[in-house]
């Protein structure tokens, strides 16, 4: 009986050691690509962060691991830690990670100068190639950065370059909206109307373009057209441009439409009163 228990204890010991060994193999020994994939799928968990720490400790030049580890930190507002990792990824493989860092500086930090510096550097590293950081045309992103800097002339120049890169049919429809808003902000009402209408030519349900037109027509005194477009904007709000991570520079809300409708009602009412007075 004693011998039986001793054998049982030995079997249990072996199983428990094997179990622990599996953990250690999983964290420290498995091929780095498989650990990278696993950590990527567990994005945001402490386990994922620990596995990336181990990977970068064992492979200090594994740029992809620094990049992937930075993602959850930046999404959740821990920018100092996140960008430290991302900077290391860029240092090791600038062509691969500069675009993402530029995109992050634009959309997550709204640091337009820093975003432009990264995007320009990426462009200089890839001559004869149109980059698309994080799936968006590099000149669309640069246009957005210039728009954020309120340099509308430069924004127009760069957004037009994006249209050349992409071809008008394939360009992001918001390129036309930004062009319209930039022209509007420069006081070029006719150009703004042309650009907003170009957006509507490709998609009649672009609420940002209708909103822009409503604003232009209101400012130029065509309250009827302004009203028409604000109602169209309201109808197409389900297609509005939004992103779950951050607010876009040209994002619009139902509350903007409601506020404008109220203002237009007041202006229409006061115009009617003036008309009645002038007739009497």
């Amino acid at each position: 009986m004693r011998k039986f228990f001793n054998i049982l204890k030995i079997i249990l010991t072996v199983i428990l050691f094997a179990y622990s060994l599996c953990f250690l193999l999983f964290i420290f020994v498995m091929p780095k690509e498989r650990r990278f994939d696993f950590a990527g799928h567990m994005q945001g968990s402490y386990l994922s962060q620990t596995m990336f720490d181990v990977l970068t400790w064992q492979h200090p030049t594994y740029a992809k691991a620094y990049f992937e580890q930075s993602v959850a930190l930046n999404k959740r507002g821990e920018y100092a830690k996140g960008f430290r990792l991302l900077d290391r990824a860029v240092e090791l493989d600038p062509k691969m990670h500069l675009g993402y860092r530029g995109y992050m500086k634009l959309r997550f930090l709204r640091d337009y100068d820093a975003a432009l510096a990264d995007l320009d550097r990426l462009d200089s590293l890839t001559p004869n190639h149109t980059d698309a950081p994080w799936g968006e045309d590099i000149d669309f992103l640069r246009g957005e950065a210039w728009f954020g800097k309120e340099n509308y002339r430069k924004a127009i120049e760069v957004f037009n370059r994006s249209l050349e890169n992409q071809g008008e049919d394939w360009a992001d429809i918001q390129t036309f909206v930004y062009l319209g808003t930039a022209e509007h902000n420069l006081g070029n009402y006719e150009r703004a109307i042309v650009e907003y209408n170009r957006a509507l030519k490709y998609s009649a349900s672009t609420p940002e373009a209708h909103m822009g037109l409503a604003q232009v027509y209101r400012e130029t005194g065509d309250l009827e057209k302004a009203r028409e477009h604000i109602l169209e904007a309201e109808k197409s709000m389900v297609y509005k441009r939004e992103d779950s991570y951050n607010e876009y520079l040209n994002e619009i809300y139902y509350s903007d439409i409601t506020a404008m409708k109220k203002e237009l009602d007041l202006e229409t009412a006061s115009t009617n009163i003036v008309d009645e007075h002038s007739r009497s």
Partner: protein
Amino acid sequence: MTKTNLFLLLSFLMAASLTGWFYYQVDHEVGEINYDDSRDDPAFELCDEDRVQQDYSPVGANYRGGKKAIERELLEGLQEKLIFEGSGLITLRFVVNCKGETGRFRIWAIDGEIQEKEFIQEQIHMFKTSVAQLEHWEPGWWEEKIFDSYYQVNFKIKDGKITDIF
């Protein structure tokens, strides 16, 4: 203690510790905000402490009118009282519970080089109380279930002035 017993004990302790460590690592996430009695209001309660959604998830909370509305409501009041040397970004992360109340505020500041920046305690309080006054929260929901979720607001500062809230 015989050698067999010693090895069995050691293997058990090792397996138990690794299991506990693994569970902890899987169960905790970057950016989670747990109740801290030294700084959080005990009256602020969550509907499900174990399932606080990320703000970017489909069931994350929103503010009526978005960050633009937050900027309209907060900018003037904060601008007057802000003490921040140079440029950078202040990030306030907090929880919007299923009743549309806010609590468990955490704050980080970075400078223009994206390095951590020290922040005066009174200023932290000012940001928290300002955001706590916002009233139009819309908690995320799915199939009649309403969720608690995180939310974060960034305050961009240039030369000591808030230039953007997003």
